[in-house]
């Protein structure tokens, strides 16, 4: 059982100063699965990814990756564990002073003593997997948003990690890149035996490729299930989210004083 779950999050809470972001989250990711964490913007999805990556420590609860509790690791231990992880940042976060090839080769050069010939072949294989072998000599500034994200994906899988995390992989992509990226995530997960965790608010695209979905709202998990469970769910929050409705438990307006009061129509203003 322990070995089936690559990521286990138990009762995790986290706050930025006085503002609680997560309040008791439980989540597991089995090996070989594609998991999606969904929720509206600012609900703490990205914070959850940063917790799994060990960039921040939970205020309460435990985060376990590959059986190791992140809270108990020192920096060396954390860096050792991170070699088993890859992360795709929202806008790729490619190193802008290096070519596409050097970006993908970065980890191989930093963490191994492989000869340059071997690195050359490995990098081209990773770039081929994302369909960008021909772009290896371009600079990041010459890539479109979708291409940059595919390069970042090739970089994230350069060391053959066990876990790959994706922060909003679908944000701002055109419909073709959207489908390509979705299929790529599914295909890489299956062929390389990865575990993938997606943080996204693109419901339709991600429901096509995921095995299991968690819905986060106001710091707690409000719903979970397979893609079919989610589509069929009649929970008001999930229904609103999946169908993109304006009215529902999630309100359009940021909390404010009553409108009449703000416009000073109360009659007693000085």
């Amino acid at each position, binding site marked *: 059982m322990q070995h089936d779950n690559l990521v286990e999050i138990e009762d995790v809470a986290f706050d930025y100063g006085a503002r609680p972001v997560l309040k008791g989250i439980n989540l597991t990711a089995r090996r070989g699965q594609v998991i999606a964490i969904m929720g509206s913007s600012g609900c703490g999805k990205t914070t959850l990814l940063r917790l799994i990556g060990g960039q921040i420590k939970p205020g309460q609860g435990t985060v376990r990756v590959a059986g190791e509790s992140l809270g108990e690791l020192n920096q060396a231990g954390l*860096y050792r564990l991170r*070699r088993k992880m890859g992360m795709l940042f929202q*806008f790729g*976060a490619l190193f*802008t002073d290096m070519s596409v090839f050097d970006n993908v080769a970065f*980890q191989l050069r930093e963490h191994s003593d492989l000869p340059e010939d071997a690195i050359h072949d490995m990098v081209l294989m990773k770039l081929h997997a994302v369909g960008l072998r021909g772009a290896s000599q371009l600079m990041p500034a010459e890539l479109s948003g979708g291409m940059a994200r595919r390069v970042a994906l090739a970089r994230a899988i350069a060391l053959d990690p066990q876990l790959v995390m994706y922060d909003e992989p679908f944000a701002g992509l055109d419909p073709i890149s959207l489908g390509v990226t979705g299929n790529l995530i599914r295909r890489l997960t299956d062929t390389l035996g990865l575990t993938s965790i997606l943080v996204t608010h693109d419901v339709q695209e991600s429901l096509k490729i995921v095995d299991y979905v968690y819905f986060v709202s106001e710091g707690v998990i409000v719903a979970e299930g397979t893609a079919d469970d989610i589509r069929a769910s009649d929970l008001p929050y999930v229904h609103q989210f999946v169908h993109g409705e304006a009215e529902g438990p999630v309100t359009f307006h940021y909390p404010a004083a009553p409108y009449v009061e703000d416009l000073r129509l109360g009659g007693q203003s000085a």
Partner: protein
Amino acid sequence: MLKQAIARLGNRTLQGVGRIGFAVRFFVAIMLHSGTAFRRFGLTIREMYFSGVQSLVIILVSGLFVGMVLGLQGYETLQTYGAEESLGILVALSLVRELGPVVAALLFASRAGSAITAEIGLMKATEQLSAMEMMAVDPIARVVAPRFWAGVISMPLLAALFSAMGIFGGYLVGVQLIGVDEGAFWSQMQSAVDFEQDILNGVIKSVVFGIAITTIALFEGYDAPPTAEGVSGATTRTVVTSSLAVLALDFVLTAFMFRGLS
């Protein structure tokens, strides 16, 4: 009203002290993670190209003009005492002791310091530093420390070149243009400039300025809020703070170094 002003002052002071604390911790972190910068010296050399070599034009041209001005002004004053043959001494000592290290440092702060802050700040804003951390590579060791040592090594070299160009500028104006005796110009300079007192102290100054400028530039970049105005504000602060730091440090160092000099 007054209470608010005092509260604001207190708040500012606390924040300032806090930032100094962070900067010191940052400096200690750079020292602790400097191994990579020397083990893979290629990384440091690459940064020396960006901050040192690319500052050469501004340093050399400024040095030449400062020296030429020194030649003109110095000659004007010295000739009233009939001491125009001491022009070599005046030009060399003012450059090696003061103008070389200080002006080169000010130029370095605005040319290379601002570039370092903007680069690190943007790398942070575009999550490149986070990405590096997630790839199990420490950004302090891989990005920050090589830039620090590159700056510390480049600064005295740039100051030396500035002084050399300045002396050449003084020679052009004094000897070639005005006609001060060439032999006297060089021989008086040679006998008056002391290696330890003048040259070495100048080198020490420029090393200290190099440490101050690169630490400030790197810290401002690393600490910059990840937004457009955050990075621009940090770049401005780098130039202002490091220029003031250079001038203040210069006073302190001069007071210690040239205390007993007659």
